[in-house]
């Protein structure tokens, strides 16, 4: 067939659908090309934990048959997609990057998996991540770290490191990740791809292995903003299987991209440009803002005064919820069981001791401590109150502006091992991402140039609750002005 490896590197969703519809290529051929590339090159990146070849080829064959019959192809027809290993795919391993789920194969599909496949996507396999999505570097995976395809001595970010790396290395046209405190936006920035955090409640979480339920969200990684809009369109919407999913109507995200950004008000939160921000990242964001001004946006400073409290708030609430959610991993119903235990309680403890890695234990302990008698009001309730203040900051800002533009991360991708000894240092990686997570608003990381050393830089566009359309419009304007430079 005519598609060569070189062409894979800029393959967009629209290009795939058109090529498959016109007969220029076949979905089966595209899937094989991606599998070949994975077999050849993923040995050094370590992005995939499992491949679902039979399922992918069966779906690709169906798409090819539809194309031959001349049927109208759905939005993602033939698009090779990878899934973060915290989401259930029937019959495929689901480890969440943890030893405690080794061997577990869920007997059902996550709703987002069903929606992608219904829309024609070809699901290639499951992607590496930090254990239970806890981490900012992918170094917490029990199955080895993922390396950054743009710089092999650097981390890809986390926790959705495999999802970001797979798109950056062209091991998939799009992938799904999850974001609890920055786990989509930060790896997208580190790997130079687009990553979307949808509004809380916009995308179903049925079939997601829970980390912190008031924060967890599912979203896409893609090579460009339009592809992100296309995937989001497919996965968004109410799901009866997830009571936290919203029944607000889903906007036309792809349609929104064709509207001009002229006249939109862009807020620049001063608290996101303080000490610790890498000067090259700062310069890149300034460049993106200049591009938005040229496109007719009104750029103005705003204040989110409680920003510095976002990390401590997040690490109380997320760990408290995790300590509760992760109590289900006990060796009884699925995954690992420590064999030598004589009693039930010994089995729980030994299974969890062997099955969980250090960071997961650290967070379970912290969360359990914050919820324990005598500390609940001082930590958990206090953090919930500060969460209200942080959310009010955003609501006030959004009464003056339509979107916010800020850095995603204080630094570009760091080296493996650089921050593993100091959890607080690692947690501070999330400084520009956790506030949006706590407030439930939407956000996206868009590539915005490189450092002198060739490391990708991301710019973050944050939007109002359920206003992904406006957010993506501005993201696309950033992307367009980058291309024109």
């Amino acid at each position, binding site marked *: 067939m005519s598609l060569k490896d070189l062409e894979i590197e800029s393959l967009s969703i629209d290009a795939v659908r058109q090529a498959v519809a016109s007969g220029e290529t076949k979905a089966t051929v595209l899937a094989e090309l991606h599998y070949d590339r994975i077999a050849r090159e993923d040995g050094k990146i370590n992005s995939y934990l499992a491949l679902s070849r039979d399922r992918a080829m069966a779906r690709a064959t169906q798409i090819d048959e539809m194309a031959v019959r001349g049927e109208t192809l759905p939005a993602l027809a033939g698009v090779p997609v990878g899934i973060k290993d915290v989401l259930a795919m029937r019959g495929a391993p689901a480890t969440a990057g943890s030893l405690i789920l080794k061997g577990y*194969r869920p*007997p*059902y599909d996550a709703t987002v998996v069903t929606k992608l496949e219904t829309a024609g996507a070809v699901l290639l396999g499951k992607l590496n991540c930090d254990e239970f999505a806890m981490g900012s570097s992918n170094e917490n995976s029990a199955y080895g770290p993922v390396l950054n395809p743009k710089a092999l001595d650097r981390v890809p970010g986390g926790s959705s490191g495999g999802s970001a790396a797979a798109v950056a290395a062209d091991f998939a046209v799009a992938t799904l990740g999850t974001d609890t405190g920055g786990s989509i936006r930060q790896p997208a920035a580190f790997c130079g791809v687009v990553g979307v955090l949808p509004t*809380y409640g916009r995308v179903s979480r049925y079939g997601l292995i829970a980390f912190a*339920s*008031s924060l967890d969200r599912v979203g896409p990684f893609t090579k460009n903003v339009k592809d992100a809009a296309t995937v989001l369109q497919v996965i968004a919407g109410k799901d*009866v*299987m997830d*009571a*936290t*999913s*919203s*029944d607000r109507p889903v906007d036309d995200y792809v349609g929104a991209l064709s509207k001009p950004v002229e006249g939109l008000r862009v807020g620049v939160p001063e608290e996101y440009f303080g000490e610790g921000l890498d000067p090259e990242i700062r310069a890149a964001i300034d460049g993106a803002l200049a591009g938005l001004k040229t496109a007719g946006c009104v750029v103005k400073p705003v204040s989110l005064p409680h920003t510095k*409290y976002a*990390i*401590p*708030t997040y*690490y*109380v609430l997320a760990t408290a919820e995790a*300590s509760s959610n992760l109590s289900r991993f006990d*060796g*009884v*119903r*699925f995954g*690992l*069981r420590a064999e030598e235990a*004589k*009693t*039930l309680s010994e*089995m729980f403890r030994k299974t*969890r*001791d062997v099955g*969980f890695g*250090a960071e997961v*234990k*650290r967070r*379970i*302990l*912290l969360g*359990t*401590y914050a919820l*324990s008698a005598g500390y609940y009001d*001082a930590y958990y*309730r206090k*953090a*919930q*109150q*500060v*969460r*209200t*203040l942080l*959310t009010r900051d955003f*609501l006030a800002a959004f009464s003056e502006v339509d979107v916010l533009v800020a850095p995603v991360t204080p630094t570009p991708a760091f080296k493996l091992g650089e921050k593993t000894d*100091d*959890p*607080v240092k690692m*947690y501070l990686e999330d400084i520009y991402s956790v506030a949006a997570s706590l*407030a*439930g608003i939407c956000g996206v990381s868009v590539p915005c140039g490189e450092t002198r050393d060739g490391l990708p830089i991301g710019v973050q566009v944050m939007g109002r*609750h359920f206003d992904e359309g406006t957010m993506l419009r501005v993201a696309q304007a950033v992307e367009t002005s980058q291309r024109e430079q």
Partner: protein
Amino acid sequence: MREETGVSLEDVRRVAELANLELTAEEEPRMQRDLNAILGHIAQLNELDTEGVPAMAQVGEMLGGVAHDRGEMLRLDEVRPSLDRVQVMASAPDTDGRFFKVPKVIER
């Protein structure tokens, strides 16, 4: 928050027991050190006066949901097929096909 005292090794053991975690002798001091470092960072929250600020469990409550006849966001209570028992039990570490088998529950 009780910054002045900090987390002792005894606290670490107590919390580990609550969380059904068994820490090794090497893990305990490391966890103590890390918890104290993280809690030290979290103590910043004390700078804020949150008197009268409502606690927020998740964002939905601040946005207001869509009104429903039958309660907020809940699906209809109707019978639907469950997962197949054979498939579910296939993932179990130990089962007789109907039940999950575990070591004895009552000690002594």
